[in-house]
């Protein structure tokens, strides 16, 4: 089962890049993003789907240091040992990471949490020594900061602190069909009423609650949704299917539209794990306000505006 799912996902990736120049590298990149490494079976699928020989694909995969044929840990730590970082004791930093993680460069910790590798340049030589963790750069790294960096990585570098981050704000959402509010005041996620939807996938049918904070990816659901599943979304009030005309710009799955109080449309990707979302403010959010002619607190750009708090 797992094997067949893997190969069908790989086939999808291959078809996407088949006609591109240098498509093989793009395919391998995407496969690596999905699995964190390049499984042997995926390389064989790429070879047979593109009509190239396995040795050609294998040659590309082993030529570029970016590709890994061994499973990697959850977090990838790359320590720069380029010339500029080297003269600023990059090697000491690498040694410190090795000691703290208890592994050598190029290895993965037994609990599959961290992979450590050394690279030859990360393109930020003036700010060396550079350490790259899960796509986040750390500059001027000192030996004493190593444990802190690892701690941050464990907590998740992509996590947004919803209480303090300026980019996060609550949105009030409605069903585009029946106009009922989708907010559930009895169920809080991130200390705000959650957005309640009904979803169905693989003959399962249940509720899904999303954080109503724009920018937060926290969800709760009745059933565990496997990664990469594309679910169908329904309004819990009118039971109409929420399906938009557009497809996800990242993964091509259908987008789920919901309207914002005051005008505007938020679309989220229906694929589990894909964090893609868009917000179109058809008109500015103040367009429906009765006080708009006299208001001094007009907010013509995006977002949700609780002007009553300022009056």
């Amino acid at each position, binding site marked *: 089962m797992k094997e067949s799912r893997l190969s069908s996902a790989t086939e999808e990736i291959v078809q996407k890049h088949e006609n591109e120049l240098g498509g093989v590298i793009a395919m391998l990149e995407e496969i690596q993003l999905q699995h964190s490494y390049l499984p*042997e079976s995926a*390389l064989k699928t790429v070879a047979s789907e593109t009509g190239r*020989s*396995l*040795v*050609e*694909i*294998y*040659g590309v995969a*082993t*030529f*570029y*240091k970016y590709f890994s044929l061994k499973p990697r840990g959850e977090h990838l730590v790359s320590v720069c040992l380029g010339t500029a970082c080297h003269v600023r004791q990059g090697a000491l930093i690498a040694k410190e990471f090795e000691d703290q993680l208890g592994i050598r460069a190029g290895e993965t910790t037994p609990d599959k949490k961290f992979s450590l590798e050394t690279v030859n340049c990360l393109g930020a030589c003036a700010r060396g020594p550079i350490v790259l963790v899960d796509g986040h750069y750390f500059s001027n790294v000192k030996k004493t900061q190593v444990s802190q960096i690892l701690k941050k990585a464990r907590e998740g570098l992509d996590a947004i602190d919803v209480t303090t981050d300026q980019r996060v704000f609550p949105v009030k959402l409605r069903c585009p069909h029946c106009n009922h509010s989708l907010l559930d005041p009895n169920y809080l996620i991130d200390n705000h009423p959650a957005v309640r939807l009904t979803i169905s996938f693989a003959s399962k049918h249940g509720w899904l609650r999303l954080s109503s904070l724009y920018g937060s990816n926290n969800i709760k659901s009745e059933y565990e949704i496997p990664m990469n599943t594309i679910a169908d979304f329904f309004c819990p009030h009118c039971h109409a299917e929420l399906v938009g005309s557009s497809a996800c710009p990242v993964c091509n799955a259908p987008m789920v539209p919901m309207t914002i109080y005051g005008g505007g449309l938020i679309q989220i990707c229906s694929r589990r794990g894909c964090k893609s979302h868009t917000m179109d403010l058809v008109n500015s959010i103040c367009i429906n306000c009765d006080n708009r002619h006299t208001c001094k607190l007009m907010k013509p750009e995006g977002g949700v505006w609780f002007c009553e708090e300022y009056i």
Partner: protein
Amino acid sequence: MITLKINGLETNVEKGTTLLEAARFLGFPVPTLCHMDGLHPFGACRLCLVEIGEGPRIKLVSSCTYPAEEGLHVRTASRRVMRARKMIIELLLASSPQSKTIQDLASAFDVKQQRFRQEFEDCILCGRCVHMCEEQMMAKAIGFRGRGENRSIGTPFDVQSEECRLCGGCMYVCPVCMLRCTYTEPEKAICGGCANLSVPCIEKEQFDDVMCYMEPCVACEITKD
């Protein structure tokens, strides 16, 4: 037809002829390792380099990949060419000293010392076997893997390839790896021993299975015990 001068001798060649073919046609000896008639030129070993151009635009190019140009002046044995060639042979000698082919080359070009760290590789990464497999055998079972000092030739994942038909073509064209059939200790190796490859193993049943690139030669395996 293209007119060019090789070592001062004017000659006419067809369009698309390489400098190596033109020089050999005129009888000038140009040593090669990776070049082989019937395979695409690859320019990997650099032994065939020649000097082209005049005045400040003199440069060294690999003659096996360089197409003949109108009015080109080619020197196949100038002082600079010989010096570069000797250096290449010295480097090859450092990596694969046990190869009879390379020993002969060193002797022919009067290379008497080898100043680099001695290695005992059995491959100079010339790519002849890769091209043989791809172009003549239509198999694409072996290829280059890795990069830089980790570059090697072999099958994906180091397991016997499904494409491989055990034709043995890769071993047949290899200019260096003859040693594999003789000894496991490179220091004691005397080259040319592979000439007896077929004698001990031809009667063995497993002969069909072992004429494959990745396996160690069965001839030595059998003579050992």
